[in-house]
C-alpha cells in the first residue's frame, strides 16, 4: 500500500488510498451467514472507498490513516502493544478525537482482513470473569478466577492468553456489572455447581466476546463436542436483547472478525416475558417502554435470522409495552434471584 503511494508521489500524481467502508450505519456491507450462524462481511470490495490526499471533504483523513499505519508499523517492529487510547494520545492535535482513531483502526483491520490485535493494537480491559477458570498467560503467570475474595478478574485480551483451563459445567454471561457483583459477593454462584461468571458490563468488548467464544469451543481431550453450556442472562428489554445478539451473531462493525468473536450456541436463559407471570414479578417493577425502546425493538425485528422465539419475545415487549430489569426479580414476593437462577439453570441443562 505504501509502495503504491510512493509511486504515485514520485509520478507527481495525487496519492489515493483504496480502502473499505466499515461504517456501522451502512449495514449492507455485512450479511448473516446461516451456515455458521454469525454475521460476516460480504466480499471485501477493495475499491469501495477512496481517500484522497487533501480532499475537499476531509483533508485530514489521508494523513490520519498514514500516521496510524506508521504507528502500527512501529509497534510491530518493536514488538510492543498499545491501546487505541494510547495511539490517540500520540498525536491528539492531528486525530481530534478518539472515535476517529477507533474508526480508522477498525477500517485498517478490515482492509487487511486481520484481527485488530495483529496490528498490535489492544483494547483496554473492561469485562470481568469469576469462577472455576484458570487463565494461563503467555508470560507464564496464572490468573485464578476462583478467588472469591476479589470482585472478579479483568478479562485480558486473547493475545496475552496462552490457554484456559476449567472444570466448570456452564458459563453464565451477565449483562450488568451490578448483578455480577451481587451474585459474586453473596456467594450465590457456589450453589450453582462449578461454573464461570462473565460480565461485559453492558455492551461487551472484544476481549470478553473472545473469551466467551473460546469457552464455548473448549473440548475435553477425548470428546468431540464442546462441554460448556453458555447461558445468557439479560434484562427483558430491547437493549438487553441487542447485547444478547452481539454475543450470538457478532456485531456489524466487527463483521470481518466474527468467527473469533461470535458464540452462536449461546442460550437465552432470561429474563423473558413469560417470567413476569411465572415468577410473579410485581407490576410496580415493570417499566413502560420509551420511544427509543420501541425504535430499537422494531430494528431488532428486521433481523430476519433471529429465531422465532426471540422475535416473539420482542413482539410481546412491544405489544404489552413494558420491560423488566433483572433487579425486578428482587421485588417479587415469591422468588428471588437465587431461586430464579437455580430454577432456570436446571431447566436449561436438559
Amino acid at each position: 500500500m505504501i509502495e503504491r503511494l510512493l509511486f504515485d508521489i514520485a509520478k507527481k500524481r495525487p496519492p489515493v488510498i483504496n480502502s473499505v467502508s466499515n461504517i456501522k450505519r451502512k449495514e449492507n456491507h455485512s450479511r448473516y451467514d446461516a451456515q455458521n450462524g454469525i454475521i460476516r462481511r460480504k466480499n471485501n470490495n477493495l475499491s469501495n472507498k477512496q481517500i484522497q490526499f487533501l480532499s475537499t471533504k476531509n483533508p485530514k483523513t489521508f494523513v490520519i490513516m498514514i500516521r496510524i499505519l506508521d504507528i502500527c508499523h512501529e509497534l510491530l517492529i518493536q514488538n510492543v502493544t498499545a491501546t487505541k487510547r494510547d495511539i490517540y494520545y500520540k498525536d491528539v492535535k492531528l486525530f481530534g478525537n478518539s472515535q476517529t482513531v477507533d474508526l480508522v483502526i477498525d477500517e485498517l483491520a478490515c482492509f487487511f482482513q486481520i484481527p485488530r490485535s495483529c496490528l498490535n493494537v489492544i483494547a483496554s480491559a473492561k469485562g470481568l470473569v469469576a469462577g472455576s477458570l484458570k487463565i494461563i498467560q503467555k508470560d507464564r503467570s496464572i490468573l485464578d478466577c476462583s478467588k472469591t475474595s476479589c470482585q472478579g478478574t479483568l478479562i485480558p485480551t486473547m493475545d496475552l492468553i496462552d490457554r484456559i483451563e476449567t472444570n466448570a459445567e456452564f458459563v453464565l454471561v451477565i449483562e450488568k456489572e451490578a448483578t455480577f457483583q451481587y451474585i459474586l459477593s453473596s456467594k450465590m454462584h457456589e450453589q450453582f455447581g462449578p461454573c464461570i461468571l462473565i460480565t461485559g458490563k453492558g455492551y461487551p468488548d472484544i476481549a470478553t466476546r473472545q473469551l466467551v467464544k473460546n469457552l464455548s469451543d473448549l473440548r475435553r481431550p477425548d470428546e468431540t463436542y464442546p462441554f460448556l453450556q453458555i447461558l445468557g442472562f439479560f434484562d427483558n428489554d430491547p437493549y438487553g436483547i441487542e447485547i444478547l445478539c452481539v454475543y450470538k451473531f457478532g456485531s456489524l462493525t466487527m463483521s470481518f472478525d466474527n468467527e473469533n468473536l461470535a458464540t452462536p450456541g449461546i442460550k437465552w436463559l432470561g429474563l423473558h416475558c413469560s417470567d413476569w407471570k411465572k415468577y410473579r414479578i410485581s407490576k410496580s417493577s415493570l417499566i413502560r417502554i420509551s420511544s427509543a425502546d420501541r425504535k430499537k425493538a422494531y430494528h431488532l425485528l428486521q433481523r430476519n435470522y433471529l429465531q422465532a422465539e426471540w422475535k416473539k419475545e420482542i413482539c410481546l415487549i412491544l405489544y404489552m409495552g413494558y420491560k423488566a430489569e433483572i433487579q425486578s426479580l428482587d421485588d417479587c414476593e415469591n422468588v428471588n434471584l437465587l431461586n430464579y437462577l437455580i430454577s432456570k439453570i436446571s431447566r436449561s441443562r436438559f
Partner: protein
Amino acid sequence: MSLQFISFVEKPKAHKSQIWSVRWSPSGNVVASGGLDNEIKIWEAQSGEHYRTLEGHILAVTGLDINPTGKVLISISFDNTIKRWDILEGNLINDIETKPGEVCCGQYNKDGNYFATASQHGTIDLRKDSNLEEIVATYTSEGKYGLCCRFSPDNKILALGTDNDKIYLFDVESAKVLHKLTGHSGNPIRCLDFTPDGKHLISGSDDETINIYDVKHGNQISKCTGHEGYVMCVAAASDNKHFVSGSTDCKIKLWQLPEKNEKTQVVDTIEEHKETVSCISWSPDGDKFVVGTDNLLLKWYCVAK
C-alpha cells in the same frame, strides 16, 4: 333485568400463540382471529368450524377489522405491513408497506369506505379502503403513542387513546379536536369503544379501571373498578346499556351502564380463564360475543336474560 353469560362454543388451541385480536364480521357469518403466531384464522360464526387460514404476515398480527359487507379483512402487524384480504377466496388483495411504528392499530368506519390507523406519534391517518396507501387526512395530538382508535357509529368522530392517559376526540370532517379527555392516572389507554347510540365512550386502561365519558359534553360520568389487571379490551353491547371487558386478571366482566346518578354495576363475571383475555367482539345481532385469550383459546358466549 339480569343478564347472564352462557358459553356455547369453545375452541382450545385455536392458534399456536397468544390471540391478540378477534372480530365478528358485520355480516355475521364469520369470526376472524389473529395474534402472536402470525396467522389469521377465519371461523364459521355459529359452529366455530375452521374455515380457512390467511398466511402472509411474518410477525405478530396486532389488529384486524372486517368491512361491513363481510368480504374484506384488513390486518395490521409488527412486520410493518397492512394486508387487505378477500375472506371468501382467501387471497391477499393488497399488501402495503409502512414504516416501523407508522401503524399500531386500525378500524374501518361504519360504511367501510375509510380505514383509520393510529401511529406511534399520536396521530390518526385516515386512509381510503380502495387505496390504503393514500392518506386523505391526518389528525394530530400531543399524545405519546396511539394505542387504539375508534370511529363513532355515525362516522363523525374519531377517538384516539394514547400511551400517556390522553383520549382525543377529533371531528372527522374538520380535523378539529373536539375534546381532550383524561382520567386514568397517567396510564396507557388500551382500548376504546363507543356505545351504538354514540352518546358514550368507554375506555379501558392499565390502571385497572374503565371510564365512561359523555361524548357530547366531553366529561367523565363514571369510573368502573373491579378488574385486578390491565383492561385489555372493552366492547359495547347493542342495547346501549351494557358492555363487556377483558383483562390480564383473566376475567371477563359484563357491566350495566348507570341510569342518572347510579354507579356502573358489574352484572356478571366469567372467571374460568387461566390467562389474559385480550380481545372481544360482539356479533352484529348483539346477543353473542367471542373472546380470544393468551391461552390460545377462542370462546363464544351467548348473553341470556
